[in-house]
């Protein structure tokens, strides 16, 4: 089998979508005395082990069909 390739898909909430978890993190950081935090947004990192040579288009289809809910989320793909 060909050497696997690690692809990273980062899923983040779209701008303008309220992120209650991010708000809570921001408030908690302020509570710890970290003053310079203007915002926090929570996302997901999904590492996929796929066959070397898998196309970006295939990964994009995976992201659109399952990994991200494109109603509220954006995704970014990092390939080696």
């Amino acid at each position: 089998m060909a050497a696997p390739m690690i692809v990273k898909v980062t899923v983040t909430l779209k701008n303008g979508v309220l992120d209650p978890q991010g708000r809570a993190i921001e408030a908690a950081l302020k509570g710890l005395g970290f003053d310079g935090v203007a915002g926090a947004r929570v996302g997901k990192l999904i590492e996929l082990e796929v066959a070397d040579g898998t196309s970006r288009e295939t990964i994009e289809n995976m992201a659109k069909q399952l990994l991200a809910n494109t109603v509220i989320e954006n995704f970014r793909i990092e390939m080696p």
Partner: protein
Amino acid sequence: MRCAVIVFPGSNCDRDLADAIAKVTGRAPAMIWHRETELPANLDFIGVPGGFSYGDYLRSGAMAARSPVMQAVVKAAGEGRAVLGICNGFQVLTEAGLLPGALMRNAGLNFVCRDVRLSVANSQSIFTSLYATGEEIRIPVAHHDGNYTADAATLDRLEGEGRVAFRYAEAVNGSARDIAGILNDEGNVLGMMPHPERLIEAEQGGTDGRRMFEAAMMALA
């Protein structure tokens, strides 16, 4: 009325829903496991129950929406069969594209589990015809991800087309425009976070949920 209830790994309101259907219609629904690729013929009503399908992995309802049985449910909905998604079932229907928008983490971050007051926003649908528009009813909620979100144009369209079925009459989870339940454009698919199947008999503390099943039976039987 021929009914079915979909069962995913992690569903936990499937038996409550089946019991409600059986008590109101006099006939037990077929219980359909998520691996099935076809539904029984001539169904009138499909219930997608509450719970934590697939452990809420990735996003609530995301995995269930891609399961084999949901392809059959999407097809049945397209043929005009009635589909009711409750709580996790509502999340599954949005993830499957049968209803617009998405359900996000509650604005207060807490799991909310209590009776809430709802206002009936549309009493013209097959599910809500035994309520009066503007009537206040009391139905329990039990969810962590019930914060309904959609872009402004979608929200305007839902409101303009009378597709908001229920609104919260009190602060619950931060839902856009207090939306608790919505209909699809054909009116045969309803998704809602509150649990009408938990209020069928007086012994359960009220019967405000019962009329939803009676209305569906009147329209479909």
